[in-house]
């Protein structure tokens, strides 16, 4: 269940979450905590509604981390609306976040390339009406990022903001319907962007997996802790050297864990790598 895609969404408002919940077929997750949570039945995808403000975003991120048993390959996304003096309706990836109240600055990773452009974000404590062309305004980004960068892989954290208000599109006119409309307009771009991130997350997932035969062998023989570490390393090497050989045939006559390790080691030591 924890294999990729493993995604954690954090949104401030239910209206921002609506289209995500529908696209990823998320269902309400019944629990007694302070936040509304949704999760997929098929995949390791969770969504939390944090409420407005960076303190809520920080607390909800930590809460979701524990509740969902997030993994090192989980992708974390803060998705929502933001003010920006230009590009009404356009979605941006964020690569610089400044927390207005304490001037802390964060730099989300830029590992994915796609059509969504990057922008900077100023996280404020109160809604702003003096819009900037240099920064988007939101109320959660810094809280989300400050927390998730401590608990998740930096390169799998994404802040996505859609421009929902500026001097021509007043913040007072934002409602559920136009939020939903803005999200729907950008959902394809979001999914494409996410696809790239899922590929990276898969790489991290694979790099953390033990060879399949590790589990077979450890259930068949009794290995000590240090033998297990050696076994994992030897199996990785053995499989690289002999991709076509059958391991069970090779170790057929091994009586115990020690003889398995000796057998693998001698195979490896006797074989020089073929570089062609």
């Amino acid at each position, binding site marked *: 269940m924890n294999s990729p895609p493993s995604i954690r969404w954090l949104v401030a408002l239910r209206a921002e979450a609506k289209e995500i919940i529908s696209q990823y077929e998320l269902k309400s997750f019944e629990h007694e905590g302070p936040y509304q949570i949704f999760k997929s039945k098929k995949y390791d995808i969770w969504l939390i509604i944090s409420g407005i403000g960076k303190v809520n975003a920080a607390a909800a991120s930590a809460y979701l981390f524990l509740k969902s048993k997030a993994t090192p390959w989980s992708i974390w996304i803060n998705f929502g609306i933001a003010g920006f003096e230009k590009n009404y309706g356009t979605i941006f990836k964020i690569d610089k976040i400044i927390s207005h109240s304490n001037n802390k600055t964060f*730099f989300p990773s830029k590992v994915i390339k796609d059509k969504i452009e990057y922008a900077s974000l100023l996280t404020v404590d109160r809604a702003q009406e003096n819009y900037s062309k240099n920064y988007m305004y939101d109320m959660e980004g810094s809280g989300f990022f400050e927390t998730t960068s401590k608990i998740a892989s930096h390169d799998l954290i994404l802040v996505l903001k859609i421009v929902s208000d500026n001097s021509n599109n007043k913040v007072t006119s934002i409602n559920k319907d136009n939020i939903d409309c803005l999200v729907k307009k950008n959902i394809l771009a979001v999914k494409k962007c996410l696809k790239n991130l899922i590929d990276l997350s898969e790489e991290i997932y694979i790099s953390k997996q033990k060879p399949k035969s590790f589990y077979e062998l450890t259930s068949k023989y009794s290995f000590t802790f240090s033998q297990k570490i050696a076994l994992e390393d030897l199996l990785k090497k053995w499989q*690289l050297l002999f991709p076509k050989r059958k391991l069970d045939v090779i170790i057929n006559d091994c009586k115990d864990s020690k003889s398995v390790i000796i057998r693998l080691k001698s195979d490896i030591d006797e074989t020089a790598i073929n*570089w062609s």
Partner: protein
Amino acid sequence: MIDTIYIEKEIKKHPRTLEILSKFRNVRTIAIDRYGEVFNRKNQNFRIQKKNPCLILAKKHKGFVLPAPEGFGIGSSKNYYFSHMYNCIYDCSYCFLQGMYSSANFVLFVNYEDFVLEIKKLISKKENITFFSGYDCDSLALEKITGFASYILPIFKEYSNCILELRTKSNQIKPLDKIEPIKNCVIAFSLMPDKISLALDKKAPTIKRRIATIKKLSALGWKIGLRFDPLIFGDSWKDQYQDLHENIFNVINISSIHSISYGPLRFPIAMYKKINSMYQNEKLFVGPFEQNQSEVLYKQEIEEEMTEYCKNLSLNFAPESLIFNCKSN
């Protein structure tokens, strides 16, 4: 290609920063206080960042020139290195930078003048010193953007008692084709057999292209360093190293060789563990390695046999005085 450049606010208006920026079109610039904000963050993934690295322009404040690790050298009693850049556009599987840094972004220190001040201070002590460039990066691979070699080379012209080695795998010959060869500057190429290099030196010029570059530079009159480093073990390694030596010595005039060195593959233990854990399918880490108190290395008999064998190959073409062992990581 680089699509984002982080710039420390302090050097935002440095002429070199402006010059570098003028070489990019459609690049996003992001102001930062210190490069460590981006480069030293926790929980970064080097391998993932390697797919789309950003450039960070920064100012170096200290540690411009450092003593080279023990065992690193080509004859001088004093060896120092300097790094105007951290990280590299190539992606060699054995590269120790991936075990040293948590980020694969490129850091370029633009205050070249300060490097030179430190170099001159050391030189003024009137010792014979070899300076190595290309310890934390490739010396020439990003020259079109950095212009570092163009800046540093003429300075060494004045100090014939010192040697500058530019270590590279690049086939970038600018600015070397535009200036008179400098006698005490060595352009040193890392080399290994073709097949092995194809498997391990990802994104770097092929051995064939490196040899062609060596040929060009030696014809121009530059002194060449041949660095068989790291020595990589494998099936039919003897034949492969023999071919490599023949291919090189057939095209290069011995008089243009400054030095030849052989460096075994060695990793500090913690670094080995970190790098090995980054790769799932990298044959290099099959070994056969052993571990001493501080390092992971090929079994002693393999290391010794490879070094001796390769040295003897060189002796078929070059005098012993040109040959060095290099045992540093």
